């Protein structure tokens, strides 16, 4: 049985007297330990799907099953417990953290809130989490705004894995990183997936990265699924119009020079 099943998900926004379906009858599933990528142009609905799956917003229609339960029907304590299993990492970790917090505080919160470790045990757990994501324990007292962007995204990943999730939503999580750092973060994500069978919902505009790290891809256009399948197969030979346009637009190092259009 799949870890996450999204069925006929729909989210409409109203602007003036117009109704826009940001997400329109979208269905997909993710298995344990699998990476499913969502790609598409701006406004295709990929970030809205992420927010729906995380229950940061509620859908107008459709169903989300997570770890065997009707996720949209959960509330109160049951939802809180299940939220620990579903974590998120966003593009800009500076915006995702309390800017006045230290690294230790950022990692202490989930351990405390979800009752994972006692007060006396938490410093040791924080040190272990930092080491798990390739940082050293002496980073713990540093302020979040003092550390580099790559370190910050590692802390965001440490925070996400602190509650032992089965699924992490990664919304453009490597897009703002320098290329030399990006490769290291992708390696870290793949290592965590191998070791702990974490599944990823990987949202990105970068088809090169998706092809390198995702098992399957869903291409979205105007809130609807245009095409889906094995990531390499879809990106190597897209069938939909949007898939062809996305592949054609991806920058290439060795493209035959074309004339101005």
């Amino acid at each position, binding site marked *: 049985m799949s870890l996450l099943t999204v069925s006929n998900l729909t989210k409409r926004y109203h602007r003036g007297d117009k109704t826009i379906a940001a997400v329109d009858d979208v269905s997909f599933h993710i*298995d*344990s*330990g*699998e*990476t499913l990528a969502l790609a598409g*142009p*701006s406004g295709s609905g990929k970030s809205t799907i992420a927010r729906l799956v995380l229950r940061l917003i509620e859908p107008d229609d459709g169903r989300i099953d997570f770890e065997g339960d009707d996720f949209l029907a959960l509330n109160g304590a049951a939802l809180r417990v299940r939220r620990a299993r579903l974590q998120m990492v966003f593009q800009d970790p500076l915006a995702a953290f309390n800017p006045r917090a230290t690294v230790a505080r950022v990692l202490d919160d989930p351990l405390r809130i979800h009752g994972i470790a006692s007060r006396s045990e938490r410093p040791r757990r924080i040190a272990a989490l930092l080491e798990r994501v390739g940082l050293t324990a002496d980073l713990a007292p540093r302020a979040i705004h003092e550390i580099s*962007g790559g370190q910050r995204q590692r802390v965001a990943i440490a925070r996400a894995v602190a509650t032992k999730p089965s699924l992490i939503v990664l919304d453009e999580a490597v897009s703002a990183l*320098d*290329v*030399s750092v*990006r*490769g290291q973060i*992708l*390696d870290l994500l*793949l290592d965590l997936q*191998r070791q702990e069978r974490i599944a990823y919902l990987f949202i990105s*505009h*970068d*088809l*090169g*990265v998706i*092809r*390198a*790290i*995702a*098992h399957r891809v869903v291409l979205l256009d105007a809130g609807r699924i245009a095409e889906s399948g094995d*990531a*390499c197969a879809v*990106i*190597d030979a897209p069938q939909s119009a949007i898939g062809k*346009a*996305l*592949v*054609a*637009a*991806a*920058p*290439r*190092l*060795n*493209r035959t020079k074309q004339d*101005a*259009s």
Partner: protein
Amino acid sequence: MTALATIRDLTVTYRRDGSEVAALKSINLDIAVGERLAIIGESGSGKSTLALAIARLLPASSAVSGGIEWPGLAHAPLGGRDIGFVFQDPSASLDPVMAIGKQIAEVAHTHLGLTWPQAYAKAKHLLERVRLPDPGSALRAFPHQLSGGQKQRVAIAAAIAAGPKLLIADEATSALDTIVQAEIVALIRRLVTEDGMTLLFISHDIALAAELAERIAVFRHGQLVELGTTAEIVGAPAQAYTRTLLDAHIGLDAKPLLNRAGLDV
């Protein structure tokens, strides 16, 4: 090669919290008339500082030594007239409460001495050239009514309104999605060719730079690491750092990092 600008021993230092940070260190670089030159680098490489120094837009708190000469111009360059600048975020560079027609016409009115009716006619023509739909009514539109890509087209129209010799695009497509990015890159290439402008294209993306530029300058930690033709930089880089950047690019032909056999569901 006729130089539009020659940069000699350019050093720029920012003062921050009492300490000094060298953003550019003794840069020597010639920009040829009519070329498309890309400046690439990661965060803190100094690429945006170079763009600001060339456009004389550095903050007053910065200390500059060395200099930039303009053998390709008959006079010292004036920002907006001789140098057009396109920034990453058009929402921040366009005035949110001024109709876009006026924002473009103002450049032509100020720098070319056109009357307002002439300047508006020019603005309409420029909106046609940047392929904004329905340019006549677009003149009266405000930035918030446009998409990100359309706003960047307007910013480009304003940047070229006074007929600059040099167009600087600083991460001008980085906030756009891939499809719109490709359209804007094609637009910049076409406008630069049609108007005989020199292009300085600042980017973190070596593949994007390679698609547009004839020469590429690689920056790191405020220093110019390597300068060469695009074919040299991409095909036979001399410096290890350039090779690192090329290797870090994950193209559509890259070997998947994923061990597919590892997934046993």
